[in-house]
C-alpha cells in the first residue's frame, strides 16, 4: 500500500526560530502517533539568509524528504520567493501581515495550482492573548495544527516541555498556540486533515538524528575520549557527547586543529583506550597524514567524516557525498584501511561500534562516512539495534609486527606488566626497529596489505531491498539509500543494493544483477560518480547509468520518481 506523505515546511531568515518550530512540530507529530522525517536547510551565517525546516509526515516509516510541500509557513517574505515553487497544487501558504509583492510568474503559479494564501498577523494575535512578540511562532504552530486537524494535547505537551527550563510564561505560550488553533482564518477549504492511522509504535519511537546515533554508538562501544575541531556537519557529535559527558565520563577535548585531533586520537588508541575524532572534508584533508601514519604503524584510528557539498569551503551547511575517494585514498603510500558508510540512525549506531572493533582487531584506520542529510535530520525510528559486542583483538606475542598469514600481528596495551615495544611510522622489522632492507621492506609491506583481504572476507555483502528479479537495480550508499528505500513499496519492479561497507569493496552481487539482465543505476550525491569509479577500479565493471546530484540538496523522492517516469 502506498505510504503517502503530508509535508509542512517552515521558511524564514536564519535566527527567526525556524529550528524550534521544526523540532516542536516533529516531536508533536511523533507524539500524535505518526512517523515523520525532519530536514533542515540553513545558510552558513547566524542572522539573515533563507532557512527552512521541512517535516514529511507519513503513516509508515519514512527517512527521506520530498521536493514539494503541502503547507508552507513563511516567517520572512523573502522565503516565499525562495520556496513558492515547492508548494504542491491545492497547497497553503501562510505568511505574516506584510505586503507580498509577488511577481506575475508567482501569481500565475499560485492561481494555476489553486494555492491558498493566508495572511496571519501572528504578532498581533500573540499580544491579544497577553503573549509577547516572540511567541508569534506558537500562533503559527497552533494554526498549522488545526489545518492538520490533530488533537492539541500532544502539541501543547511538547511546547510545555520545550520551554519548561527557559524562564518563559508557559501559560502565555499555550494561549498563543490556542489563538492560532482557533483562528477565524481557518476555513474548511484550506484544511489538510491528516487521515493517516496513528500508531503507538510511532508515539513510542525515538526522535533522533544520525549524529546522535553515532554518538550513542561510540558511548556503547566504550569510546572514552572525543577529540575534535568544530566543523559542520560533524559538530553536533561534539555537542551531544559534551552535553552527556557527566553521565558517561567521556573526556572531551576541543583540539587546536584537525591535525591535533587526529594525533590525539591515534595516541589514545595506541595507549589502549578507545577514542575518536569527527570532522568534515576540509578537516579530513588535514588528517590524511595521520591516517597514513596509523596505516604503516598499524595503529587503530577512527575518523567520522561527515560530508557536506563542494570543494574548498564549498556549501558548508548543505549535504553531499563527494568525499568517498578521499576516504578510500586519502593519505600517502599503501596501507590497509576500512571505509564504512552510515545511512540512518540504526546503522549509524551499529556501524560506529563495528568501526571500533575493526580498527582495533585489524589495527587500521577506519573512516566512518555520513553526510549532512543523515547527520542533522531528525528520524523517527522504532528502536536502536542491540549493541554490538566489543572485540579488541588484544593478544600477547613476542614481536609487535610479527609476519602472519592474516596480516594481523599481535598487539598489546603498553603497561607496567607488558614488554615494551616501538610503534613505528618508519618502515620497520618485526621488532619495530627501522629498516631499509629490501627484503624486509617487501615482507612487511605485504603483511600489512594482507589485512585488506582478511577483512574483505569478514565483512558482509551489501544489503539488498526490493524485487528479487528487478528490472532496475539502484546502487548507492549514505542518505540516497533512504530515499530509494522509501519509494520501493510503490515501485515493485525495482531493487536497491545498499552499501554500508565501502572499502574493502564486495562487488559480486552487483555484477550478478548486471549479468542477470537488470538495468544497474548508480545514485550518488556528488558530481563525478566517485563510488561508481571505485566499483570500476575494484571490479572492472562500469555501471552504465548514473543519477548524480550535487546542488547541496539531498536526493528527494521526486528525483528518483522522475528518473523512473522518464
Amino acid at each position: 500500500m502506498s505510504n503517502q506523505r503530508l509535508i509542512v515546511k517552515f521558511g524564514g531568515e536564519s535566527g527567526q526560530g525556524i529550528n524550534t518550530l521544526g523540532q516542536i512540530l516533529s516531536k508533536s507529530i511523533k507524539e500524535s502517533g505518526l512517523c515523520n522525517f525532519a530536514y533542515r536547510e540553513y545558510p552558513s551565517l547566524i542572522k539573515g539568509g533563507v532557512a527552512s525546516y521541512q517535516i514529511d509526515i507519513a503513516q509508515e516509516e519514512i527517512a527521506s524528504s520530498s521536493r514539494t510541500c503541502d503547507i508552507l509557513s513563511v516567517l520572512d517574505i523573502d522565503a516565499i520567493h525562495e520556496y513558492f515553487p515547492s508548494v504542491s497544487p491545492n497547497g497553503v501558504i501562510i505568511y505574516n501581515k506584510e505586503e507580498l509583492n509577488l511577481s506575475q510568474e508567482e501569481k500565475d503559479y499560485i492561481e494555476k495550482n489553486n494555492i491558498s494564501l493566508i495572511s496571519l498577523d501572528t504578532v498581533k494575535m500573540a499580544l491579544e492573548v497577553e503573549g509577547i512578540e516572540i511567541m508569534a511562532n506558537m500562533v503559527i504552530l497552533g494554526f498549522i495544527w488545526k489545518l492538520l486537524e490533530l488533537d492539541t494535547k500532544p502539541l501543547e505537551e511538547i511546547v510545555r516541555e520545550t520551554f519548561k527550563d527557559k524562564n518563559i510564561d508557559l501559560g502565555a505560550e499555550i494561549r498563543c498556540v490556542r489563538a492560532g488553533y482557533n483562528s477565524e482564518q481557518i476555513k474548511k477549504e484550506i484544511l489538510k486533515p491528516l487521515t493517516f492511522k496513528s500508531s503507538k509504535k510511532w508515539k513510542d519511537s525515538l526522535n533522533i538524528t544520525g549524529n546522535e546515533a553515532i554518538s550513542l554508538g561510540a558511548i556503547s562501544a566504550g569510546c572514552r575520549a572525543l577529540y575534535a575541531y568544530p566543523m559542520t556537519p560533524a559538530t553536533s557529535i561534539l555537542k551531544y557527547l559534551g552535553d552527556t559527558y557527566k553521565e558517561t565520563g567521556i573526556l572531551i577535548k576541543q583540539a587546536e586543529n584537525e591535525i591535533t585531533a587526529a594525533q590525539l586520537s591515534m595516541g589514545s588508541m595506541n595507549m589502549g583506550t578507545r577514542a575518536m575524532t569527527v570532522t568534515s572534508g576540509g578537516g579530513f584533508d588535514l588528517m590524511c597524514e595521520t591516517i597514513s601514519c596509523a596505516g604503516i604503524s598499524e595503529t587503530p584510528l577512527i575518523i567520522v567524516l561527515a560530508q557536506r557539498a563542494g570543494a574548498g569551503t564549498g556549501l558548508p551547511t548543505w549535504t553531499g557525498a563527494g568525499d568517498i575517494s578521499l576516504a578510500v585514498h586519502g593519505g600517502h603510500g599503501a596501507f590497509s584501511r576500512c571505509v564504512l558508510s552510515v545511512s540512518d540512525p540504526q546503522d549509524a549506531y551499529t556501524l560506529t561500534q563495528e568501526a571500533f572493533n575493526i580498527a582495533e582487531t585489524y589495527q587500521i584506520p577506519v573512516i566512518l562516512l555520513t553526510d549532512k542529510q543523515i547527520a542533522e535530520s531528525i528520524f523517527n525510528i522504532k528502536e536502536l539495534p542491540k549493541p554490538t559486542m566489543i572485540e579488541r583483538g588484544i593478544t600477547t606475542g613476542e614481536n609487535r609486527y610479527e609476519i602472519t598469514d592474516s596480516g594481523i600481528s599481535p598487539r598489546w596495551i603498553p603497561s607496567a606488566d607488558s614488554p615494551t615495544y616501538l610503534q613505528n611510522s618508519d618502515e620497520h622489522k618485526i621488532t619495530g626497529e627501522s629498516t631499509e632492507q629490501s627484503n624486509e621492506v617487501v615482507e612487511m609491506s605485504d603483511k600489512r596489505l594482507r589485512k585488506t583481504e582478511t577483512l574483505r572476507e569478514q565483512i558482509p555483502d551489501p544489503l539488498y531491498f526490493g524485487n528479487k528479479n528487478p528490472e532496475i537495480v539502484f546502487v548507492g550508499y549514505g542518505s540516497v539509500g533512504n530515499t530509494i528505500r522509501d519509494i520501493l513499496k510503490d515501485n515493485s519492479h525495482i531493487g536497491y543494493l545498499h552499501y554500508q561497507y565501502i572499502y574493502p569493496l564486495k562487488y559480486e552481487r552487483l555484477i550478478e544483477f548486471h549479468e542477470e539482465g537488470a538495468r544497474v543505476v548508480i545514485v550518488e550525491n556528488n558530481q563525478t560518480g566517485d563510488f561508481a569509479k571505485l566499483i570500476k577500479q575494484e571490479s572492472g565493471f562500469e555501471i552504465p547509468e548514473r543519477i548524480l546530484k550535487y546542488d547541496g540538496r539531498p536526493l528527494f523522492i521526486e528525483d528518483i520518481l522522475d528518473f523512473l517516469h522518464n
Partner: protein
Amino acid sequence: MPIPITQYNKEVKPTWCMGCGNYAIHIAIKKALGELEITPNQAFVTFDIGCSGNGADKINVNAFKGLHGRSIPLAIGSHLANRKMTVLATIGDGGCLHEGLDHLIHAIRSNYNITILIHNNQNFALTTGQATATTPEGKKMYGLPDGRPEREMSIGEIVFSSKPSFFARGYSGDPLQLTEILKEAILHKGCSVIEIMQICPTYNKESSLEWFAQRIEKLDKPLSTINKAKEIISMHEKIKTGIIYTDKSIPTFYDRLENRKGLGTELVDEVKQYDISKLLEDFK
C-alpha cells in the same frame, strides 16, 4: 634503588654522527628514568622526524615514532589515555617551530602533564643542513648561498609568551645537568618544556663545544618571577642553563575536567560496553 642505565639500552647500531649531541641526550634520558625508578615499560616516549627521531629504536621504552612536527599531540593523546605512564615528547627545533609550533603553544596553554624535549641544533640536520627558525639571521645554509634572509626565533620567548608552568634549558655537552633537569621536569605536575642546546658537529660547526663553553652559565636555582625569567632567556651574550622558571599553581588540563573528578580509573581501564538505555529516554 635506581634502575641501571643498561636496562634502557637496545642493541641497535647508532646512526648519528661522531660527536652528535643525541648520544648525551639519550644517556640523560635513560639516567633520569633510572634514578626516578621508572621502568622501561612505565615510560612512553614519542619521537619526531629528524636526527632526534632516529633515536626511536635506540632506547628500550614504550615508544611511538610518528610524523614530522607531531610528537607533541601524539604524546598528549597517549598521556590522556593513561596518566600512570610517564610521557616524554622528543622533537627537534625544526619540527617544533615549523611543522608543529601550534602544538607547542597549545600544550603549554593547556598544561598537560608531559615533558617536552626540544633538541635545538639550529638546523634541519637529517636533511643535510637547511635553515630552521633558530638558525642565525644571515647565516649561509643549504639552498641559501647569500645567507638566511629572516630573523631567528627564540624558543624561550615563545614558551614564555604562553605562560609556562615549567621551562628549563639544558645542554648536550652537560648530560649530568640535563639528567637533573629531566628528573625535575618529569616530577613537575604540568607541561615541562626543556630546550636542549645540542651540538651538531656536521651542519652547525660554528656552535662547537668551545663556542658553548665560552657562553654557557649555569643557574643555581629558577628565577622567582616570570618577568625575571624572561629577562635572562636571550642567548645573544650568555646562554643560561638549568631550570629557568616553574609555576606550580597552574592546574593541569586533566585536573580541570569536571566530569573526570573523583574517578579512580584511567581511560585505558574503562573500555567496556556501556548501557545507553537511560540516555535513550531523552529521545522518546
